[in-house]
């Protein structure tokens, strides 16, 4: 029997004003990035609660990336500055608990950076794929 090729599932939280538009631009420009990236649109990167990230892992994500406007460009002025502090501390805590730090990432992608969006996703998927399945924050009840 042939093993199904392993494809990581990535959840990307993208803020409505920059990164989501960036993803759109990547599509319009026909830039490739893996279909395993599932985008969830949020009003601002700071809408992402630590619970969202844990939930994503629970429901089967192998990696979670948060994309927002570049610092200083947040539609709500300071949302992404809070995101930055929150995620720095949260990711550090995940690392402290022994959960692979490469599975989480924050990236600033503007609406004009379609290419950056695609490149970021390609790179992130590659990194996560090399780590394999998320075992340390999995919930067997949610396995497909």
């Amino acid at each position, binding site marked *: 029997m042939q093993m199904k090729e392993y494809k990581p599932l990535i959840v990307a939280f993208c803020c409505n004003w920059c990164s989501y538009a960036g993803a759109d631009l990547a599509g319009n420009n026909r830039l490739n990035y893996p279909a395993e990236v599932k985008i969830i649109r949020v009003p601002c990167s700071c809408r992402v609660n630590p619970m969202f990230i844990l939930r994503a892992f629970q429901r089967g994500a192998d990696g979670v990336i948060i994309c927002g406007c570049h610092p200083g460009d947040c539609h709500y002025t300071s949302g992404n500055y809070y995101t930055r502090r929150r995620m*720095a501390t949260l990711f550090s805590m995940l*690392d402290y608990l*022994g959960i692979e730090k490469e599975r989480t990432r924050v990236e600033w992608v503007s609406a004009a950076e379609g290419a950056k969006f695609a490149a970021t996703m390609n790179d992130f998927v590659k990194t996560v794929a090399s780590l394999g399945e998320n075992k340390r924050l999995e919930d067997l009840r949610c396995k497909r």
Partner: protein
Amino acid sequence: MQKITTEQLIEKAAELMNEGKVASVLGWEKGEFGYDVTPGIFGSVDELKAKFVYGDFSAANLSKYLVKKTEMVQGQALVFLKTERKILIFLKPCDSYSFNQLLTEHRFDREKVYAVGVQCDGMVDIEKVKKIAGDGLLSVDTSGNDVVVKTLYNGDMKIAKADVLAERCVNCKSKKHVAYDELLGETGEVIDSNRFDEVERIEKMTPDERFAFWQNELSKCIRCNACRDACPACTCEKCVFDNPKSGVENKSPANSFEEKLFHIIRAYHVAGRCTDCGECSRVCPQNIPLHLLNRKFIKDINEFYGDYQAGAEVGSRAPLVDYTVNDVEPGEVFDRGDENA
């Protein structure tokens, strides 16, 4: 033993009651055994005389009780319903930080509280005593720098208090009272403690070791919620862990994911507001070192955003609801971590 005695505190409380300054007292109440002291509310001098105690087991941090005790009911605080008098609270140095933190968060009305700072000479951890003395404790008393234990099986023994000091007191961060109206005994200084040593030790492990360490610790959790309920920073009226729709409401963790979810969220929720009073670890019936999660956040915050002690002053802005334009990026944090490893 404490330099300040139970009698001195009762005397002070009685004096304030008789003067009509305070209506009730938040203090420590005797339990069945000398060591199971609980928080208590006292409404009269007689009650105080019968049940109040201050000693090496008066570890409970009382600040949180002020939230409910001064709560507004139809525009009037509970204690004010009957009288115009205040509620008296006794604060050890570490409790006074929680007191300030709650004030910062506008969780109670300072006007309705009379705070008496009490000198603290360190608290004893009964679990440590049990480890040395074994089962069948008959009585535990402290005299001077010794703990005198009588046991059923292993006879009587004397243990140096230093050997059974509570973890939070071994690493006491400050003997300074940061809030009080009046002081009994002396107030000390902020101490340059070694409280981050253990966190550093864990940080230096490999990810696999860290994972195994925490898996081992967190899997003991029975989700009694005591850590949340005792925490003076956890005062939300609605908590995600009470919400039946969250799937993680008051029930024991179904698997290791739920354990981690609870602990990450609990610790994260108090990050930047935790005063490191050590109540969570103290009340945990499973002896999970929860303070090591909180201290990790404190240590990170100190390193990333500059030293910050929650509760050191009223009105300071917690680091996670603050920012500067030049903060470190989450990615850089990890690179820096690699250098340490």
